[in-house]
């Protein structure tokens, strides 16, 4: 019964999406207010039906209704409740349902929050959103129906892949999708602007909150995914340049570029065509990401069993969306004239540099990700492009970008005096020398890259804080005055400082974790101990324990430093029954200074166990920094300029709207 309700809701949602995607477009063309307003209602209806469908599938999972094929192949009656619920989106069909549900939610949000949008623009945005929904709903209904029945119903389900039974991964897909799909709104705004033939600062101000939200969620989603890989896969790595990781990283890079170029459109009314193109590219990369992950064309450590026939549909959809929007861009963009002029050394210039580097970096990641596909298609040779490629192409582009972050915000608009700006950064330059000295002394030199990384960290951190301190005239005027200036500073200014500090912290974490980690791999017998990174790991032994739906071999390590006990780690090697599978549960003790990381492997038959111990200095800062970046995004998002009055279009005499 529940499945049928879900199925009908999906079909009704498709009908609503079809109407939402066509009538308002026609209405905006004919200046018919009724048809234009229809879009908002249709988006509500589509959203409600998809909510019903989503709830129906969730009920199927919670009540373990194994007559639904999707539930039977991905759930199990013994699974803990959290994973029954996260199991809803832990599989292909369910995750797509989540995707369209979020898409409909955002479409409705545009209708609900877009009260001050001009009628025709709003109608067109909602319509484009509806059209994307049509594409995805067709895909769900015809190739990936989550409500398909199975007869006879099995006695119990096949269970969820145990690697996915994890709190980190329970929330990773929803955040990532909020980001991916959030970019659909910017895309819809871009397409609507192309149809209208008009981009102005007000447009940029409407688009920015959506870009910010999408970017923030992507940041959080990627960070969660990397954190999951770090503690769940038991390899101690946090980023593998794996195709699936790249698939989420490329939209993030493009969205970061978009975030910055939209500022130029908003403040200076220029770089319009470029911003529109970025909006199209960002969403296209989100679609490509879905395609790469879901079609199984790429060989990846994260590729879960997937079906290539679905890939054909997504590919057609991708070609239609990307091809269609680029065609529209080619037809319409040349008509939009750029605004204010600027010198190469200026805030605009810095943002152009940011965009150049970010988009080039995106292109190299794209090339490295897709190259194996092309080579296979044209020559049949199987290759993989590994971390060395990305490290040697991405890093040289990322380093100047990160260095520029320190200078950019201090440059005034239009024209700037670089020497003057650099002289204001004396403190940042000084901090570089301090940190280099400190690093040299503490880490005994170490690899050259670690010095580069630490210098960039200091430069960025102090540079961002100097800019912030200057804006509130810290120490230059009374403290009360500074406080008042700080309170009055727009939230987006705080947001920028916070986000840039977040980048600095991520740089710190990456540098330290990549260059100073130590690792020890050996067979240990109970009672033996190992010294790693200044800590002593005493192996007490291992025993069999029983979990709710698995059996586990649990090792005990007492970790101490200078004779004082720090923590006891319990790494596990689990064997799940449904589906039959083993997983490594690394035991990690995260500290601000370092992570202590222990893994237990198999018995060697002579009373010893294979063990692996890592010491990862400062690695937590990668994720702390990501969260700080997200908080920076939230601060910007809460800026009242995006909500109140200001986002109103300047009246332009009719006829000059080109």
């Amino acid at each position, binding site marked *: 019964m529940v499945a049928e309700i879900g199925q009908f809701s999906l079909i009704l949602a498709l009908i609503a999406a079809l109407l939402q995607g066509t009538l308002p477009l026609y209405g905006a063309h004919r200046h018919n207010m009724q048809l234009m307003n229809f879009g908002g209602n249709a988006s509500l209806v589509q959203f409600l039906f998809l909510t019903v469908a989503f709830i129906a599938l969730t009920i199927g999972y919670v009540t373990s209704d194994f007559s639904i094929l999707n539930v039977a192949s991905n759930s199990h009656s013994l699974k803990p409740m959290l994973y029954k619920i996260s199991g809803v989106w832990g599989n292909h069909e369910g995750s797509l349902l989540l995707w369209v549900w979020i898409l409909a939610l955002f479409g409705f949000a545009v209708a609900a929050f877009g009260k001050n949008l001009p009628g025709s623009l709003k109608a067109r945005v909602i319509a484009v959103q509806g059209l994307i929904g049509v594409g995805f709903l067709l895909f769900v209904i015809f190739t990936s129906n989550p409500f398909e029945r199975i007869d006879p119903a099995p006695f119990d389900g096949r269970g969820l892949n145990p*690697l996915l039974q994890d709190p980190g991964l329970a929330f990773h897909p929803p955040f990532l999708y909020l980001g991916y799909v959030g970019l659909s709104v910017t895309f819809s705004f871009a397409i609507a602007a192309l149809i209208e033939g008009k981009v102005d600062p007000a447009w940029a101000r409407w688009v920015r909150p959506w870009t910010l939200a999408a970017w923030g969620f992507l940041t959080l989603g990627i960070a969660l995914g990397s954190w999951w890989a770090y503690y769940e896969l*038991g390899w101690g790595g946090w980023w593998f340049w794996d195709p699936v990781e790249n698939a989420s990283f490329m939209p993030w890079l493009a969205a970061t570029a978009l975030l910055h170029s939209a500022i130029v459109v908003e403040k200076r009314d220029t770089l319009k065509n470029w911003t529109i193109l970025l909006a199209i590219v960002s969403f296209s990369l989100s679609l490509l990401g879905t395609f790469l992950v879901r079609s199984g064309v790429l060989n990846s450590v994260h590729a879960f*069993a997937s079906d290539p026939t679905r890939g054909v549909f997504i590919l057609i959809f991708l070609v239609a969306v990307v091809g269609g929007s680029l065609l529209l861009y080619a037809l319409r963009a040349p008509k939009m004239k750029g605004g204010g002029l600027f010198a190469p050394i200026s805030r605009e210039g810095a943002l152009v540099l940011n965009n150049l580097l970010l988009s080039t970096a995106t292109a190299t990641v794209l090339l490295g990700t897709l190259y194996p596909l092309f080579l296979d298609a044209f020559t049949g040779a199987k290759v993989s492009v590994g971390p060395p490629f990305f490290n040697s192409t991405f890093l040289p582009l990322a380093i100047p970008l990160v260095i520029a972050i320190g200078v950019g915000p201090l440059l005034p608009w239009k024209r700037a005096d670089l020497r003057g700006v650099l002289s204001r950064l004396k403190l940042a330059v000084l901090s570089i020398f301090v940190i280099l000295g400190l690093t040299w002394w503490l880490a005994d030199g170490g690899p050259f890259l670690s010095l580069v990384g630490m210098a960039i960290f200091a430069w960025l951190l102090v540079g961002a804080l100097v800019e912030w301190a200057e804006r509130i005239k810290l120490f230059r005027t009374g403290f009360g005055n500074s406080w008042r200036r700080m309170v009055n500073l727009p939230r987006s200014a705080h947001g920028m400082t916070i986000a840039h500090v977040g980048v600095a912290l991520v740089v710190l974490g990456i540098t330290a974790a990549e260059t100073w980690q130590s690792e020890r791999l050996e067979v240990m017998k109970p009672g033996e101990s190992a010294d790693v990174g200044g800590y002593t790991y005493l192996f007490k032994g291992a025993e069999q324990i029983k979990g709710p739906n698995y059996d586990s071999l649990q090792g005990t390590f007492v970790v101490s430093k200078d004779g004082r006990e720090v923590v006891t780690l319990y790494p596990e090697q689990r064997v799940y029954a449904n589906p*039959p599978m083993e997983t490594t549960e690394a035991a990690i003790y995260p500290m601000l200074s370092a992570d202590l990381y222990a893994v237990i492997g198999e018995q060697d038959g002579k009373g010893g166990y294979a063990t692996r111990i890592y010491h990862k200095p400062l690695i937590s800062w990668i994720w702390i920094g990501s969260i700080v970046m997200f908080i920076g995004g939230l601060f910007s998002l809460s800026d009242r300029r995006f909500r109140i009055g200001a986002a109103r279009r300047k009246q332009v005499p009719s006829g000059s709207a080109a």
Partner: protein
Amino acid sequence: MTRKKRRLYTLLAGMGVLGVAAALVLYSFEDSLVFFHSPSDLAEKPVPAGRSFRLGGLVEEGSVEKDGVIIRFRVTDLAESVPVTYRGLVPDLFREGQGVVAEGKLDENGLFVASNVLAKHDENYMPPEVAESLRDAGHWQPEGSN
């Protein structure tokens, strides 16, 4: 600064960055492309010792030997097989008869010294290259193996 001049500068900067990127890509493609070979490929066209590549196939039944943290096994496509040695913990899904991809180099004696061993997250999942090389060797049953 005129509009034309600005456009020229932006264009030059863009070309500059792209040029650098292209140089980086070409330079690093040289030695960071890792080819995939099956045991049959190796029998047909040997790869010189010391060159990195990925070796894929099934872990041969009864071939796994463990000695502390060193593991030795044979990768087979059911036609040919190659001995592999690896120092480290093998992934959770590594077991006899299952698909595996090993990254590493051959030594002078034809022993494949793996620097990394990958097995997949999913017990039904077969790395596409492995599936294809098994199909080429005539041993692949597409469905119903689970």
